[in-house]
């Protein structure tokens, strides 16, 4: 029976928690903006939901003697105009803040470092080309999911990877996202990032991580049989620690 219950367990997207149904804790201004917009729109949606469900309930309840539900009315000019124009106006009002946020998130003005994320079937490859190792090559590494049978106790299934993206906090980072075979999608909910990784195209997106921590993400474009098994793990550490890690590479 427990077996069955677990099947309904849905992992939502920082660290997803079982049965959670709200955002993971934000770590970038972008995600804070997204959250604010989402909650704002939800506010108006709740009002609409209240009105619509009350009307529906009421009409169902008093169907036979409700003048509003008069069943031989075929067309009501006034109400038709009202319920076409009003939703359009509401959508328009929602669209403006949405566009503002969209174009704000799109800006990558003065990044301090660039990380390339390249999607493969089915793993990610990261290149830190701003830095060069002793052999004069750029720092690059691949990141695979830890398979179930190699998981050590406490590791998150299908979320923990063998290598993670190390990034310094309070640094403007540019991610350049592309793919090598099919379309993948580089998505980290806590950072407010979701960019398609298209073969032959470089997409940039910025992130300014405000706190140290570990952030998980998953490939978000169906890319084949192991689509579920190419997670993304970002570890944000202080700048000195990051440089230390860089020297080890």
């Amino acid at each position, binding site marked *: 029976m*427990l*077996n*069955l219950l*677990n*099947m309904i*367990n849905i992992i939502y997207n*920082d*660290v997803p*928690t*079982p*049965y959670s149904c*709200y*955002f*993971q*804790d934000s770590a970038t201004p972008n995600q804070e903006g997204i959250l604010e917009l989402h909650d704002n729109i939800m506010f108006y949606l709740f009002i609409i939901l209240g009105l619509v469900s009350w009307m529906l309930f009421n009409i169902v309840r008093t169907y036979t003697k409700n003048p509003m539900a008069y069943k031989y009315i075929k067309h009501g000019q006034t109400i038709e105009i009202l319920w076409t124009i009003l939703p359009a106006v509401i959508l328009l009002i929602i669209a403006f803040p949405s566009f503002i946020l969209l174009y704000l998130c799109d800006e990558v003005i003065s990044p301090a470092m660039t990380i390339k994320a390249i999607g493969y079937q089915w793993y990610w490859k990261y290149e830190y080309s701003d830095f060069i190792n002793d052999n004069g090559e750029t720092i690059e590494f691949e990141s695979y999911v830890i398979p*179930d049978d190699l*998981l050590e*106790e*406490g*590791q*998150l*299934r299908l979320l923990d990877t063998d290598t993670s993206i190390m990034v310094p906090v309070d640094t403007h980072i540019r991610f350049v996202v592309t793919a090598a075979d099919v379309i993948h999608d580089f998505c980290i909910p806590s950072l407010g990032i979701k960019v398609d990784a298209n073969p032959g195209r470089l997409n940039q997106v910025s992130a300014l991580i405000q*706190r*140290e*921590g*570990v*952030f998980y993400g998953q490939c978000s474009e169906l890319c084949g049989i192991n689509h579920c098994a190419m997670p993304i793990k970002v*570890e944000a550490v202080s700048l000195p620690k990051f440089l230390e890690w860089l020297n080890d590479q």
Partner: protein
Amino acid sequence: MDINKRWETMPNTEQEELVAKLTERQKLPWKELTQNEKQAAWYISYGEWGPRRPVHAKGDQAFIAKGVALGLVLSLGFFFFVRQFAEDDPKTMNKEWQMKSDEYLKSKNANPWGGYSQVQSK
């Protein structure tokens, strides 16, 4: 006279005859109509027959309810049957493991205000 029980089984000619007879009778002052005649006239015009027959007959609701229940039971049965062939839970699905995950996530400062707990198994 029990017109509402006989009416629908009457042959057409008889129905027409009856209607004609009643129409004739209704030309008189209505006070002179007998109770039965009044009832018959009303039934023919407004009774629950022909286009005024209710959409669902008496037993229909029970029939539909039974059908829906049967469908639900069958699909649940199929679901449980299929689940018998399911793989075991992944080894992460136990409390010790999830407590360990929590420790790790805490050390990594995950979800500092929203909560990070992975514990879901008993």
